[in-house]
């Protein structure tokens, strides 16, 4: 009996410890790195499953200097997830919905920029918004990975993202990517989910060109002017 009491005391202590750890993690959640600016545009920059990189932080800083307030989000770091594509499917959508609503509540024009697999929670959260909220949002996706499964010799299978009716989506696709030949299929899938799509192919660039181990001179130059690229594409797209 004494053993049982001791075990129960230990078990309660264990539960308390687990709860406390959860609280500490939640309390320290680095929701976003913010780069305030006085302009009327707000960009939510969602890093890929590999996490936020130094060139991305620099670009966010430069955007703010150009008047575009920027919130930089890194799901892998915020939720202590492995830096894998599948981790992005684990991001709590209600948190992201809350971020989107908070961003829109500020009164600025809100655009989201998501990289690689981070496109999945962004699009799913957009699908969960009210139609009017969704229509007010612009989403730029850098080489999005929306595959459910892919296997050589088999048709690609894309994830069901929910209704994207009214959502404007611009896909930025580096030319030097195995995904480039499959861009039409990806755009078709987004359109089938209700999104209004457009795309830009980025010549002479590879996926994740700002964080490559052996970047070309052109990739180095382009990673230093990511802020200009995004501003240019936002303006040319006319999503206002």
């Amino acid at each position, binding site marked *: 009996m004494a053993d049982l009491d001791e075990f129960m005391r230990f078990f309660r202590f264990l539960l308390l410890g687990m709860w406390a750890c959860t609280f500490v993690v939640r309390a320290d959640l680095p929701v976003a790195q913010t780069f305030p600016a006085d302009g009327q545009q707000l960009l939510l920059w969602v890093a890929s499953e590999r996490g936020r990189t130094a060139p991305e932080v620099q670009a966010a800083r430069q955007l703010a200097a150009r008047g575009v307030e920027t919130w930089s989000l890194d799901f892998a770091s915020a939720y202590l997830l492995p830096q894998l594509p599948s981790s992005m499917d684990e991001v709590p959508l209600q948190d992201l919905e809350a971020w989107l609503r908070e961003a829109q509540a500020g009164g600025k024009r809100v655009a989201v920029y998501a990289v690689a697999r981070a496109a999945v929670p962004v699009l799913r959260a957009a699908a969960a918004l009210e139609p009017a909220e969704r229509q007010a949002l612009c989403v730029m996706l850098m080489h999005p990975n929306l*595959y459910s499964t*892919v*296997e*050589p*010799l*088999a*048709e*690609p299978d894309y994830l069901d993202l929910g209704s994207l009716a009214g959502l404007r989506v611009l896909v930025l696709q580096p030319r*030097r990517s*195995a*995904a*480039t*030949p*499959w861009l039409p299929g990806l755009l078709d899938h987004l359109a089938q989910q209700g999104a209004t799509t457009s795309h830009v192919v980025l010549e002479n660039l*590879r996926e994740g060109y700002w964080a490559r*181990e*052996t970047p070309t001179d052109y990739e180095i130059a382009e990673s230093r002017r990511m802020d200009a690229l995004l501003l240019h594409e936002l303006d040319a797209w006319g999503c206002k």
Partner: protein
Amino acid sequence: MRQGWLGVVVLVLAGAAQAAGFDARPAVPAPQLKAQDLAGTERTLADYRGKVVLLNFWASWCPPCLREMPSMERLRARMAGRPLVVVALDSAETPQEVNAYLSRMSLGFPVLLDPDGSNTKRWKVFVLPTSFLLDAEGRVRYVLTGPTEWDEGEALQVIESLLAELPPDAR
């Protein structure tokens, strides 16, 4: 009983080894391949019928693709005189981009062009490099996603296994 468990463990390990590398496929006819070589000659799989074919999808911007190229060239040299053909199909690049790489890397096997990505899409290639091993009847037998050293280990074993299916006088 202990031997039974040992058998199960061996089978599981063998399965894991198989899953780690080459994906064995049921022998089905390969998709159409229709591409020009660097001289502008139209090539199809019929040109290689009767031989085991290593068909490698690659691109000059893809570091893992370039890493495995020397081993493909060594494989070609090692298999000279035997019924194996190595074919590298460049995915969705211009001839100029391909030639720029080939000016730095001498390759003795045919390089085909797929500037519009039509072959890449027919073969449902989503990752580079992706390689297909075809038997002498033009059927896909193994698929590998990602790079390998082609002149050693498992790669050499599966190639030899396909060559072993040929009549002795043809190997």
